[in-house]
């Protein structure tokens, strides 16, 4: 299948969010685990909102602003159990207009 270029930020831009500034609902417990113990870093390509980024130095960074609250990252990370995953505070996060 031909490769198609995609900018996920453009997709997320169509969505409505109420970001809980300064209170991310998902946290990487120990960044060293991502850097040293996790080879595949599947969160960095499976997350449908591309919240996880693989950095040049082997670490993984997380910005939850565009999170669609699906839960994939938590399940992907079952072996390392390195993601602290909660729903956002009531009324915050993604607010689907159509769902």
């Amino acid at each position, binding site marked *: *299948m*031909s*490769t*198609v270029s*995609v900018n*996920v930020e453009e*997709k*997320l831009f*169509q*969505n409505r969010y*109420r970001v809980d500034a300064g209170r991310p609902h998902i946290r990487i417990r120990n960044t060293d685990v991502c850097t040293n113990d996790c080879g*595949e870093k*599947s969160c960095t*390509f*499976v*997350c*449908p*909102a*591309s919240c996880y980024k693989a950095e040049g130095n082997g670490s993984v960074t997380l910005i939850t602003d565009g999170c*669609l*609250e*699906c*839960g*994939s990252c*938590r*399940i*992907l990370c*079952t072996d390392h159990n390195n993601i602290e995953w*909660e*729903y*956002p*505070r*009531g*009324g915050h*996060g*993604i*607010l*689907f*207009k*159509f*769902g």
Partner: protein
Amino acid sequence: MKKPSQFDAIVVGAGPSGNAAAYLMAKAGLKVLQIERGEYPGSKNVQGAILYAKALEEIIPDFREDAPLERHIIEQRMWMLDDTSFVGTHVRSDDYNKPPYNRYTIIRAQFDKWFSSKVREAGGLLICETTVNHLIMDGDQVVGVQCDREQGDVYADVVILADGVNSTLARKAGFHGEIEARNVALAVKEILFMPEETIRQRFNIGEEEGVVIEMVGRITDGMMGTGFLYTNKESLTIGVGCMLSDFKKNPNRTSPYVLLEQMKHHPSIAPLIAGGEMKEYCAHLIPEGGFNAVPQVYGHGWMIVGDSGGFVNAAHREGSNLAMTTGRLAAETVIAAKAAGRGYRANALSPYKAALDDSFVMKDLHKYRDMPDILHRNPQFFTTYPDLLANAARTMITVDGVDKKTKKREVMSSFRQRRSLSGLVGDAYKLWRAFR
């Protein structure tokens, strides 16, 4: 410490299962509190979405009078795609135009809002913008919920967990473990707006008529999954979902949004969606582990309904009808338990499981219990076969001077090359076993 119950029942979540449960309990005169973390019911919920009328009819018989329904389905297309083609079947019948209609496309944010209004009309109390953090236990009995508000502890005789596929509360309480990646599909979708007239022309349908297209093949990049395209009134919904375990181990490291974008560019799909204005991009997990992945769904003072309990029939793309039915059966159990006055220990709530087992919910999940495993172990059903069939059809239909007998031989040999004779026979048997 045990506090006096303020409610007969608390329902966590205002999707189809939670609304069904809350509505029926409120209608029966129980004091019901429903807690929803979204700004309004539906604002956290994602579905394809097809509504199967029957399950809702049993809860709100006259729902058609005011429920926000998009189109009733008169045509179902099943497509198998390779890179450039599709082969498939189209089933269309004017019989599907005779009311009462059996299936509709819906937009969940609107539908859930409507369903929730029925709950409130029936006397249920709804609190939105409130996330439940934990269940409150008194020993082994669930006695309430702890919300993320000031003085957010609320007590009830029974708590119904309709909190969705992530099943956060039951997991935190230790009622079941983490979901396995092989038991859950990750789906992404977009809603594309276009004039109603365009939809009618492109899909050859009348004002309220709708078409659904279900797809397998190259669009899932070798993973176990399906794509779909549904017609709404003034929009199309297009999406694709694959097992999370397959995403995780895909050597191409394909992102879900790339998969979706590639699918939108498929030459058989692109003309149908051309010019559509994308207004939302969603992602959601679908519990597809089936019968063997359904956890313990009741205990002392608690019950699990809907996606939270894994009640999805992946083989038939059914979920919201199971959700509403499990919500209904849970509500009926609570209503009976209250009438009997024997408390809400697990033994008093066990009729819920008996009712589930006796309903189409567990019967259907049981019938297809081997399916997830068979498909996991045989990815050729999602990769090789759609390719072979599309190619076979194209070869036979193309008029190029090659005689038909030679063409047939080419097709047969392409099947044997890619799957071997024993492989073909074995696959036929496996499919028969999964579906019988």
